[in-house]
């Protein structure tokens, strides 16, 4: 069941085959870009995420599905409210695989 967290929420998971982080879109698909995410603005809309969580499990495409809280920055871009989800959304904050 989707948790009733404070604030607007989006639904995230990871692709079963690749492990990539994805976000549920308005059209019911999964996007690699947070900006495509469907936003739940009321407790009722958050509740509806339960259906998508069940569908994701059934479809066997996306795993570890859960909602998190988002806000908008000064430019109107969606950003996660919590540092963990910020890191998860943007990828490692360091330059890796370089000498």
């Amino acid at each position, binding site marked *: 069941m989707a948790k009733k967290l404070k604030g607007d929420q989006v639904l995230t998971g990871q692709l079963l085959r690749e492990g*990539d982080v994805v976000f549920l879109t308005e059209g019911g698909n999964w996007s690699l870009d947070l900006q495509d995410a469907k936003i739940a603005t009321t407790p009722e809309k958050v509740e509806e995420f339960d259906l998508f969580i069940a569908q994701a499990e059934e479809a066997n495409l996306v795993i570890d599905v859960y909602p998190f809280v988002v806000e908008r920055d000064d430019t109107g871009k969606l950003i996660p409210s919590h540092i963990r989800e910020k890191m998860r959304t943007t990828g490692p904050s360091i330059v*890796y*695989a370089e000498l």
Partner: protein
Amino acid sequence: MYVYDDFDEKFVRERAAQFRDQVERRLSGKLSEAHFRPLRLMNGVYLQLHAYMLRVAVPYGTLSSPQLRQLAMIATKYDKGYGHFTTRQNIQFNWPKLKDLPDILDDLADVGMHAIQTSGNCIRNVTSDQWAGVAADEVTDPRPYAELMRQWSSLHPEFSYLPRKFKIAITGAESDRAAIAFHDIGIQVLKNDAGEIGFAVYVGGGLGRTPMVGKKIRDFISLDDLLPYLVAILRAYNLEGRRDNKYKARIKILVHETGIDGFKAKVEKIFDGLEKDKLRAPAGEIERIQGFFDLPNYETVEPNPETLTKARSENAAFDSWVKRNVATHKQAGYAIANISLKPIAGIPGDATDEQMNLVADLAEKYSFGEIRVTHEQNLVLAHVKEKELFELWQALVPAGLATANIGAITDMITCPGLDYCALATARSIPIAQKISEKFADQKRQEDIGDLKVKISGCINACGHHHAGHIGILGLDKKGEEYYQITLGGSGDENAAVGEILGPGFSGDDVAGAIDTLVNRYVELRNETTETFLEVVKRVGLEPFKEALYANN
């Protein structure tokens, strides 16, 4: 080095084939995620923050050149061109795809490697001293006993579903480079007055949210009784360790709550009742294993040759590297060359595929084709002729592998933290990078001397912060990262848990705080040879607290 026999080969191939079938069934939907998760974890496959992660076992931290090349190949072909060496002497790949993992396990099996028991509530990879076999202060090479324990613990039917994970470390030296006091079982190889090999056994050590220094449970257990005694400890733990609360499930909690005397009584009772003959290694097995760890055929070479002295006098950077990174070898004319994976402002423990290939080549050229991984996330070439050190160093420099900082402040243990880890509460790597930049000056590092800074990105303490002379713990405060600093920890033979200094710092302020602490140390030390830890022991925490918090 140990080489797989037919049994090992068949066993690892079978497991790879089983995993291939499990992945196929998962991808086709025949296996649910709930059913698949424990299966993938048994093969070292985690789901991390951005991707799957594969942890590959490097038994007691020893690799051959072909094995390291294969790891480089896996990094190139299936990952993003790099791997991360861990505090348990293993290597992790951060970006494998689930669909590729069966092929990766086959590739590992091709070089006698696997990812079995690198996760889950079982006996994990047995770790050891990275200088095993060559350290000047060693009683004997601990690796044959580590290998014996590897064989004994692999898929052990009684100990595959323990209350929680179980880590064993073994050293053959007085100076503890394997942090045995912070393991579920720590073992020190000894010789008695009769010259017989035996083992001092420590139990109940660990880091995490409840750090504990291991307690000695036996002064000397004979080689014959080693495996039966381990069975007795693990059986006592398996029967009485808590399964109702994962945070209280490690053996350290059981030992702490029972008391070492009470726990020892339970272990000894079980031990007395064992049919020991059935639990001992078969006759001749340890001798067979020891045959794989015979020292290489060293040449008779001149110790401290003129060419080395000359190169050191003519090249200050090389001289710094020899001082910091080269250790005394048992064999005259040879040296232990430590390769730092902590370049200034780099990512601690990371190595690119090119670097791995280069080290594999250099190991073949200069060190009998053998590489060691350290629990401090560095590499070692254990058998280098002193007269070839300069050549080796010249080959390491252009690859960014010649940082002269082993044991210095910029040689930090650092967990992956919130840049990769799903459990982390804060980032570790950027903190390490800022500290590294702050202390980049070689002269300053050399003036400071040995100083172990260890950074964890959550209370699980994979970055060993409790054991750091300076420990840094990243936490989450209302959705933002902040960092606690501890002082006085130690992971060696004088193991100690660090104490928290006071209120935490933001990520931007940590490096400055460490700078303040180090400056205070330099002011307080009586002479330049008085180490950071000695000063902390002499003066206590107050002068450091005062330096950090006086203005707040």
